[in-house]
């Protein structure tokens, strides 16, 4: 005889707490890694070894992935590359907490600025606060070609630079929207209408694409900027399985042609979860896993990047818990519960401790000040703090 679980009388706080505890234990056992605090205290390894990294690549999963489908036992089969290839080389943060609005554009903008932005997630607006790209370029006097964003949807067109009066126009990153470029390339061949549903802007409002108003490059600039012809681009797109593969293709092309010191790639296939199809959500996670490994391999192969690049990988936030009655499990990120706010981050590169787990909670707004410490700029308006184990 057994007593079935009675969620009717469950206490949501207790459930969330239990999940949090088991989550951290699982993450540690999965990675088999040591704790940074136990082995080394909180001091960074950097001072002892390699020279400071000169380049940084940030990959966010815009379409939050839950622990259940990644680092928890049932999820581990979905991330063989992260588990077996990357984590052994990484410092892994088990708790990255996003306290802001859980919409992909506004959340990514919050990570990019280090301030919880509060604008309408679906509006084509610039962040209010200076972006990492503006700090980087202004403080270090870097040219426009040295900071790029590869982003999934029209909504991200203005993520490259803020509306802040001390920064703003002319100081930000170039933004490449591969799906938009592909739409334009296909339209040139009268194929565009046929593929509108493929090139949908996002998964939360799948038929809607905001009007563009940013500094994104257009099709006619592609040849000049990326040294890539429209035909070659469209032809290569035909060999790829998804928009995220297209984004990584463009990112690798950027690395080869322009070798930017600061490159931000936002993947988005995972967000198909909004359609409620669990298998397609899993497909998206597996693809992200593979693409992250491909990017890391590309870093090792490119002379401009090898041994001088720090790579950050993090979902922008999680997704709703199965047990929160206000949501529908993996499908959305609407409840604001602990699982939807808490995710992970891994950091790899020269001077970064390998095979190390950090259990303490860090804030998603801490990333930009940490990048500032690594690259040498001051994220002066950020609400976050440099992460001691990295910076």
């Amino acid at each position, binding site marked *: *005889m*057994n*007593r*079935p*679980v*009675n*969620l*009717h*009388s469950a206490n*949501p706080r207790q459930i969330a707490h239990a999940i949090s505890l088991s989550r951290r234990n699982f993450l540690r056992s999965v990675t088999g890694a040591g704790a940074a605090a136990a082995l080394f205290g909180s001091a960074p390894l950097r001072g002892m070894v390699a020279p400071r990294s000169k380049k940084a690549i940030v990959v966010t999963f815009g379409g939050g992935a839950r622990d259940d489908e990644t680092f928890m036992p*049932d999820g581990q089969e979905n991330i063989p590359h992260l588990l077996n290839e990357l984590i052994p080389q990484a410092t892994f943060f088990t708790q990255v907490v996003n*306290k*802001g*609005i*859980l919409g992909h554009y506004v959340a990514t903008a919050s990570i990019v600025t280090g301030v*919880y932005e*509060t604008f*309408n997630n*679906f509006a084509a607006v610039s962040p209010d606060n200076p972006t990492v790209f503006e700090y980087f370029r202004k403080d270090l006097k870097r040219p426009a070609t040295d900071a790029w964003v590869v982003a999934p949807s029209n909504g991200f067109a203005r993520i490259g630079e803020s509306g802040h009066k001390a920064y703003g126009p002319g100081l930000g990153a170039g933004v490449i929207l591969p799906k938009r470029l592909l739409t334009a390339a*296909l339209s040139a061949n009268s*194929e565009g209408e*046929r*593929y509108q549903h*493929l090139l949908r802007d996002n998964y*939360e*409002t799948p*038929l*809607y694409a905001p009007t563009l108003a940013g500094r994104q490059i257009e099709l006619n600039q592609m040849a000049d900027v990326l040294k890539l012809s429209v035909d070659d681009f469209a032809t290569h*797109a*035909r*060999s*790829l*399985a*998804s*928009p995220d*593969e*297209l984004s990584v293709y463009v990112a690798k092309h950027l690395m080869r042609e322009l070798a930017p010191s600061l490159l931000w790639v936002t993947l988005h296939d995972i967000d*198909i979860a*909004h*359609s*409620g*199809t*669990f*298998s*397609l959500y*899993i497909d998206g996670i597996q693809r992200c896993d593979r693409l992250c490994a491909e990017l890391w391999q590309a870093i090792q192969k490119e002379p401009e990047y090898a041994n001088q690049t720090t790579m950050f990988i993090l979902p922008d936030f999680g997704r709703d818990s*199965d*047990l929160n*009655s*206000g949501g*529908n*499990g*993996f*499908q*959305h990120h609407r*409840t*604001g*519960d602990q699982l939807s706010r808490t995710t992970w981050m891994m950091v790899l590169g020269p001077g970064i401790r390998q095979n190390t787990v950090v259990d303490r909670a860090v804030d998603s707004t801490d990333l930009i000040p940490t990048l500032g410490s690594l690259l040498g700029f001051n994220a002066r308006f950020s609400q976050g703090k440099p992460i001691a184990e990295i910076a």
Partner: protein
Amino acid sequence: MLPNQLSPESFAAYPPEAKRVATARIELLQKSPLAFVPLLLRELIVYDWKFPAERKDLDRQFAWLASLSPEQFAAAMAAFTKLSLAPELEKTDWINSPGIFSEQLSAHLWKTHQIDAFSAAAVEYVQKSGASGGEDALPTHRLGIVVIGQGVTNNRYRLFRKLRPLGTYFTQVKHENGMGTLLQVVAKRAAAHPEPFAHWYIDGGAPAATDPQSPLALVSYAALSPVRAAVQSRMQKLYEAPVFDPEHLRTALALTRPEEVGLAAGRDPVLDRFQLSLITEGSGTQVFATTFVQWAAREALRRAQPVTLLARFAPRQREKPMNELLTETQRNPELDPQGSLVDADMGAWYTWINQQRLTGADKSAFLVWFEDHEEAVVVAPSFERGKRSDAAIKLDDLVRQIA
């Protein structure tokens, strides 16, 4: 407008039953805070189309609020009263459009970092008001049956991974006339306890034949095909409007009337409204049959609180990879049985969770069966947890043990 300015005339546009309840409870509404009243009205304004269990829940909430002393009432509302609201929220027509108010309130709470405080207040309110009337006696224990994997021949996915630890996993289920057997069990329970909306059959394709005289609530993806097409068309028009605000999309769709999208008048208006809500409020239900069944089962359990639910997943259309879409000519949608099985396996887990949220959870029973295959899991008080049984057993015998 603020709640203390409400009068009986405020509800002139409400349907008859909703108007009656609002007028009878107007003193309660008048003394409640603005962060709370429209949320209650969002439920009340559709009172006429609510299931009996939902009406009972709403009646219980009003009765609980009315039973509180002034101090208790103030304490119950304190967390809502503390929320800081934007002045423009007062100016919305929250009486007649409580859904729009709710969306604007939600956006405001996220923006001002008050969403956690609001969620905690809502959870506490639901727990306290729900516990106030005690649990109603059920006519029989709840039974959930989920059928997954239609059309799959060779499965490569480890099924029931979340449910196996909670029940007994059977590997040798003999399933001659499997669906027929399950439908007979459901029909028998419906005949024995013929309360309205107490027994449901949801199908992701065309439904199996059922007795039209049975008090079984029947919903199917196939039957709603014209409705789905009509809703998709309306969605497209909303997106293409000169001024579009995605935040209002769901509200705009929620204003759709059944007759506008081909849900025939003259049938059960409550069931028609429910079916319409599945298509207008669900995400992905318009396109994917697996999502439709999972969401329909969730909503049926949450709203109608049935004692019997049979949900049968069917293959959804295949999501084509980009390279195929870029190189192929247009073809009819293909089905994806294997992907649908994975969807449905998760859907079965969610259906069990949603069943366990209801009263009587400690006595409820649940069966998930891999259609036309020999694998099944039963979660029920009389079945051991985490056990595997390789003994042959008839599906008929299995389901009758829990029916």
